[in-house]
């Protein structure tokens, strides 16, 4: 049997990163929305809705980083130094918001206020830093041979700022629709309002990022049909389902919110993310360090990829199984008194 191991592993890493964005996305989003809660009790409910699952969500980030190291070491070794500053910023922010889950409950008056702020601020900064990482990645990384050969702040451009804004809006949208799904009464109403606002901001920023991305690299523009000699509809047509998926997501979101559905808005927001994710990937695939290293060039030795594939084939279904079970155990609404009676 001849498996295309690098291709399979590119798929596994892509799925891990997608699951990270969708799962940690909503709990980072809840943190971003923290300052807008009316009461401390509402904040408690917001945190309660994500407390049992955030740790599992963040593990997909570890799989993304660890998996990149293990499957595409040359890409890992080139990208991490290139995006050193935003990666470290993200880690520091994730530390502060991660410990806040427990610290916030142990703190007395001042301590609780500090960790409430740390949770909100950490979530926001982590989202911004991830936007820098994403934007800096799509912009491309300067290589010297196979190692990073650029400057420390190559990643910081108007484009990455735009991507960061878009990601913050998108996470806020995921957080808001999650809260629509998981909460009741006044907070539920607030979440619905946040979802409208974040949805509008996400739609606008996603459109802006999509357009700006066309100017980032000629390869991307060409893929989407924009050539020097005019628009090539035949090249664009295979990509058409991607923006259509995003539009469908926005429609599901809007109709869901308008009809006061509890679950549909989160599905709509998820589809929007899926569309954005695939759309960006379509621009740089098969590069794993845009635009100088393909995933095949970066891939680890076949025997390492094969060994890990055996592990993944057995373990990933198990992991997905118990992750789904945990979500099932904590299904339904989180109400203010659900915890202790």
């Amino acid at each position, binding site marked *: 049997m001849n498996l295309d191991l690098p291709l399979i592993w590119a798929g596994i890493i892509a799925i891990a990163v997608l699951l990270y964005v969708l799962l940690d996305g909503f709990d980072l989003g809840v943190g971003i929305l923290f300052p807008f809660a009316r009461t401390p009790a509402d904040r408690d409910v917001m945190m309660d809705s994500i407390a049992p699952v955030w740790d599992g969500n963040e593990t997909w980030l*570890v799989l993304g980083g660890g*998996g990149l*190291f293990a499957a595409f070491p040359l890409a890992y*070794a080139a990208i991490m130094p290139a995006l050193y500053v935003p990666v470290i910023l993200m880690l520091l922010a994730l530390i502060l918001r*991660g410990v806040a889950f427990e610290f916030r409950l142990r703190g007395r008056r001042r301590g609780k206020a500090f960790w409430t702020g740390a949770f909100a601020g950490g979530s926001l900064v982590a989202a911004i830093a991830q936007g820098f990482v994403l934007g800096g990645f799509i912009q491309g990384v300067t290589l010297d041979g196979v190692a990073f050969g650029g400057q420390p702040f190559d990643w910081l451009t108007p484009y990455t700022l735009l991507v960061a804004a878009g990601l913050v809006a998108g996470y806020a949208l995921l957080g808001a629709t999650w809260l629509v799904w998981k909460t009741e009464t006044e907070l539920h109403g607030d979440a619905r309002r946040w979802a409208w606002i974040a949805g509008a901001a996400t739609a606008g920023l996603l459109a802006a990022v999509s357009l700006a991305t066309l100017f980032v690299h000629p390869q991307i523009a060409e893929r989407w049909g924009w050539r020097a000699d005019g628009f090539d509809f035949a090249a664009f047509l295979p990509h058409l389902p991607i923006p259509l998926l995003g539009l469908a997501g926005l429609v599901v979101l809007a109709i869901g919110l308008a009809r006061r559905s509890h679950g549909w808005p989160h599905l709509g927001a998820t589809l929007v993310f899926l569309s954005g994710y695939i759309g960006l990937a379509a621009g740089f695939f098969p590069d794993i360090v845009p635009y100088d290293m393909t995933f095949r060039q970066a891939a680890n030795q076949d025997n390492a990829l094969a*060994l*890990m594939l055996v592990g993944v084939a057995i373990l990933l279904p198990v992991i997905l199984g118990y992750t789904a079970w945990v979500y099932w155990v904590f299904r339904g609404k989180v109400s203010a008194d659900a915890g202790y009676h």
Partner: protein
Amino acid sequence: MDVEALMLSRLQFAFTIAFHIIFPSFTIGLASFLAVLEGLWLATRNEVFKTLYVFWVKIFAISFGMGVVTGVVMSYQLGANWSAFSALAAPVIGPLLAFEVLTAFFLEASFLGIMLFGWKKVGPGLHFTATLMVAVGTLISAFWIISANSWMQYPTGFAHTPEGGLIATDWMAVIFSPSFPARLAHMCLAAYLTTALVIGAASAWRLLRRPEEPESQMSLRMAVGMFAIVAPLQLVVGDISGKDVLRLQPAKLAAIEAFWETKAEQAFHIAAWPDRATESNRWEISIPRAGSLVTAGSADAEVKGLKAFAPEDRPPVAIVFWSFRVMVGLGVLMIALGVWGAWLCWRDAPERSRAFLRACLTMGPAGFVAVICGWIVAEVGRQPWVITGVMRTADGVSPVGAGQVSASLLGFLVVYAIIFSVGLLYILRLIAEGPLAGADEPTPPVPRAPGSALAAVPDDPGRARGDRP
């Protein structure tokens, strides 16, 4: 190469990894302790075990969270600061770290949610299963990370490719490299001892004030049992691990013992001031011939000294020598504490001896100090290599400038200082309140904040039993 950036990267890695290891050392043992408590509670229905579980799981939640967030740093820092090492080592140890994520991290993270918040959502059997999964997950995690580290200490089962890379040739030899079994056992026992010392200290603190508290009497006895059995066992396992070092990493052993000359009948230095410039100890307090005896098992055995290695291949000596002595010294004190406690248990009751309780209290942090000293011996002692004989630490660093690394190091120092001091404060506060905090107060209970680790726990641990058929 940027020498300053290299130094800062080493400092940052040493700081972040030393800080991180504090939490796994504690939570590996605590997770197993919680599984034992819950198992005993299910088996005996003795409410003392339940009260202790509910108390220690709060402390577990805080420490585990700190372990998780400081651990995420590791999976990215490797690439950010040590990209050349990452690119070279990934074909061999990449799968080991990937398996750690797949077999351990997801297991711990997912079942932790059930363990902390699932009391009312799942039955007692499933809840116990969740606790067990978390405990097993911590041990699996230790398995893989010690495996990867042991391979770096003494790599086997690989070959060099024509392009200058590495390739694994025998996965079993990679995973089970020669020093791995003893080092894994040494680390797991260290984690159990560290946890037992903290539990012993917390119990002693309560018993000095309330000698009749049954929960603290029980947990003190459990801790004493661990000291008495695990501390002597650790001495044996540590000695086996030391014999591996003699065989596999003679330069590290020479640094540990501050041996300079290669000879038979090495003296054992109780204390010394090793000086790399003069290639000798400026002064030493020694037992003649005992050095060969304790390291090689025979006073007549020839043991290599540091001068047998080229100066650029020698590890720093003084820090390794002294860290090792602190670790062993604390180990001996732990054994003494175990013997004393066992004797008190046999004669009367350990909580009656205030001197013993004070000793337990004093020894509370000893496990952490010993673990960090042990890791300093392991990691500084294998310098200048990051993969022994294959890659020098200096060659593993990323093309990242000193400015960026000093900024990130400063960031880690500030953030870790905050979370460490606050986390410690909250843990100590919980310990000071003791296992019966809350349970003492009569109804109506103050509602716990939703989202708290204990939000879903019945308010009165004693009542939980009546809820069940």
